[in-house]
């Protein structure tokens, strides 16, 4: 009699625990990158980001079609053709940093007494790009595709370098774009400014009506890169591949 009284609750405990553990295991392994497991506010943020992107892509398509039409019409008109090519060149030079630019935007000033590391500058520029910055400079250096932000050692202390140029204080980051959006991108709760505040670094943000951003000074040589021309009658590389990787995490949606 004594024994059976013990057995029943014990069995129950084990069964119960078994179920809980397996449930927990399931919950755990599903968390990582499954969309349905994300917080609602994050999903809303994603929807917003994607809607913005769709909007921009739609504008881009209209622009490109216009360009295409204009290019066809100017087939025999050399001056018009030249204007078209020039216009596109100007646009792409915003990306390559070949020309100085002006416009509205945001300046971020970091003074010498703030404990800011090179990695913080990488995060600040990353956030600025995410917030729709069109061009960025740090002090007199334009940030492009190939710009490296790193550190160097000098007189027993670390200095931040941009393309191996030592940055002197105050460090002034200038970004062109919608100044409100740029500021919001940096100051959102839990964002880069909050993180810097933990280390008692409070960079000074200021929206500006008119900013000038210098052209890139460093000539970047490409020793290895060449244009890739896909073989005839075959689609360009991976265009057939879906953008969303076909890994099991995304299949669960």
């Amino acid at each position, binding site marked *: 009699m004594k024994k059976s*009284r013990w057995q029943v609750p014990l069995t129950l405990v084990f069964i119960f625990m078994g179920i809980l553990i397996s449930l*927990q295991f399931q*919950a755990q392994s599903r968390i990582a990158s499954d969309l349905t497991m994300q917080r609602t506010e994050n999903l809303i943020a994603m929807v917003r980001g994607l809607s913005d*992107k769709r909007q921009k892509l739609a504008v881009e398509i209209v622009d490109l079609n216009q360009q295409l039409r204009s290019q066809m019409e100017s087939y025999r008109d050399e001056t018009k053709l030249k204007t078209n090519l020039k216009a596109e060149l100007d646009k792409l030079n915003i990306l390559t940093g070949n020309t100085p*630019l002006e416009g509205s935007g945001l300046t971020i000033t970091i003074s010498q007494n703030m404990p800011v590391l090179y990695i913080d500058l990488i*995060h600040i520029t990353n956030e600025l790009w995410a917030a729709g910055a069109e061009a960025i400079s740090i002090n007199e250096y334009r940030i492009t595709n*190939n710009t490296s932000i790193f550190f160097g050692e000098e007189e027993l202390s670390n200095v931040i370098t941009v393309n191996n140029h030592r940055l002197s204080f105050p460090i002034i980051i200038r970004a062109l774009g919608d100044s409100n959006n740029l500021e919001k991108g940096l100051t959102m709760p839990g964002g880069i400014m909050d993180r810097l505040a933990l280390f008692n670094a409070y960079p000074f943000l200021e929206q500006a009506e008119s900013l000038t951003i210098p052209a890139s000074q460093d000539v970047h040589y490409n020793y290895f890169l060449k244009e890739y021309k896909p073989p005839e009658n075959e689609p360009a590389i991976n265009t057939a591949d879906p953008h969303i*990787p076909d890994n099991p995490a995304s299949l669960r949606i």
Partner: protein
Amino acid sequence: MKQKWLLPLTIVCIISSFSLAFQLKILNYSSNSNPLSEKNTNLVTIINDLEAEIKEQENQIEKIRNDLSTLQNQQVEGELQELQDELQKVKILSGLTPVSGKGIVITVDDYSQGLQANPNDDPNKYIIHYENLLNIVSELKVGGAEAISINDQRLITTSEIRCVGNVILVNTTRIAPPFEVRVIGSPKILAEIINNGELEILRTSNFPVTLEEQNEVIIPAYKGELQFNYSQAVKGD
């Protein structure tokens, strides 16, 4: 008699409350267990629809850009030809064309085995975060990378690497593990800097990491928008 019942009952209660507490903690991570999940399902549907539409748009953009390039490269005469050549050069530099060359291919993945072995641990310790990718990319740039893509998203000047919750976005496009970073540049320099940097850190934490030197790394073109509404070239140039 009463006491003999009491002891097992107490044990049952203690154990089950512990388990329940654990379970609740886990559910908190995902925060959308029951009432919200329907709303989330709707949001996920919207996200999937938007992504499909965006993919369509990107293909369209790629096609028009190709047509445009073909047109732009047809006429060949004197001064115009110079302009054409310059435009083509700038297109390659800015990431509008697919490129190829010597380089390395890096893959990093979530450490899911570790998570399975320690189901009670914080799952954030076992997944790749956007910071890891951002560090990899910035180290590659220090190593003189000439072109970089992550899971077929070409990085251009204005590209960002971010996360929303645990989902990583590049060029506002969702990418999922395993992450493949393709780089064109000196394989030796790139491998040295990345092996002593972020990859070393990931390896120490047992993340599955591979690095391969290749003679021809192919990197796709940027397919997104290029809209500049706030920047103007400084006049008087």
